[in-house]
């Protein structure tokens, strides 16, 4: 495949050479996805081809928004990666509701209470317990129900932001901001009580 400058890509994709340029671009996308999926995604070839098709449509519909701040192919690959990972996450988490995730978290808390680490000193255990209770009350007082849910799902249970957002009828960017606000509120509260997050870490032995 011949190397094209940004300008040459745009001209080719909009002109009589369009079909050839689209084929070349599809090949670039497929290669990029395969590098990432190798050994990790079942049905590698079909999946990469499918995602490449979706990405290509998105690219062609948005050609006008390319501002030339990077190489054209970097811009294209960025879009392709977003399309592919959005779809992979959706598939991986398809059968999991946010309610289930919250319940799982609740349950794991009770179990870890029972299996408490007996190797740490009683002082450390007491400090940890006090910190948990203190932060628990800050969370209850400072955060909204929605912020608490998002925090448990994303921060503690590892649900992708995008998946939590879909279930909470919002989008990834807005959910990040919601969690950022939650973190800021908790940090301020901790500091207002004369503590710092660093000291919390120290108290539980995780500096």
């Amino acid at each position, binding site marked *: 495949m011949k190397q094209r400058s940004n300008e040459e890509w745009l001209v080719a994709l909009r002109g009589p050479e369009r079909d050839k340029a689209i084929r070349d671009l599809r090949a670039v996308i497929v290669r990029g996805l395969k590098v990432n999926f190798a050994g990790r995604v079942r049905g590698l070839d079909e999946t990469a081809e499918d995602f490449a098709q979706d990405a290509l449509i998105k690219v062609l519909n948005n050609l006008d928004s390319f501002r030339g701040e990077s190489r054209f192919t970097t811009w294209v690959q*960025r879009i392709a990666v977003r399309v592919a990972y959005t779809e992979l996450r959706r598939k991986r988490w398809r059968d999991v509701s946010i309610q289930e995730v919250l319940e799982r978290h609740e349950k794991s808390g009770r179990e870890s209470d029972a299996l408490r680490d007996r190797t740490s000193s009683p002082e450390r255990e007491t400090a940890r317990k006090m910190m948990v209770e203190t932060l628990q009350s800050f969370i209850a007082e400072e955060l909204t129900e929605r912020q608490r849910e998002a925090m448990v799902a994303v921060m503690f249970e590892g649900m992708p932001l995008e998946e939590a957002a879909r279930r909470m009828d919002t989008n990834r960017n807005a959910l990040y901001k919601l969690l950022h606000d939650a973190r800021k509120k908790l940090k301020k509260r901790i500091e207002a009580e004369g503590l710092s997050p660093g000291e919390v*870490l120290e108290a539980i032995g995780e500096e």
Partner: protein
Amino acid sequence: MLNPEDLGKLARALDMTREDEIGCDECFEQLDRFVETELADLDAAVAMPLVQDHLEKCGDCREEYEALLRALRAEQGSTSVSLIWARLRRLFGAD
């Protein structure tokens, strides 16, 4: 609602929390320049600290950033290999 193992995660997240974080959209907008800076062997984290900060905090964006970097590295690799072959062919008069 706070399990003992969450406490460390939360405290670390709060320790890293700053006023001026960017969101996923802004990160995405700047991601291609960030990755190209990195591919040019320049310090992207210094050039674009807010993107770096977001990537440290957001698992979704970090996953996509790593994938993009891998894709471009592979492309860059294959480009330089083909350039070397082109040069060798010229050198030996095969073209």
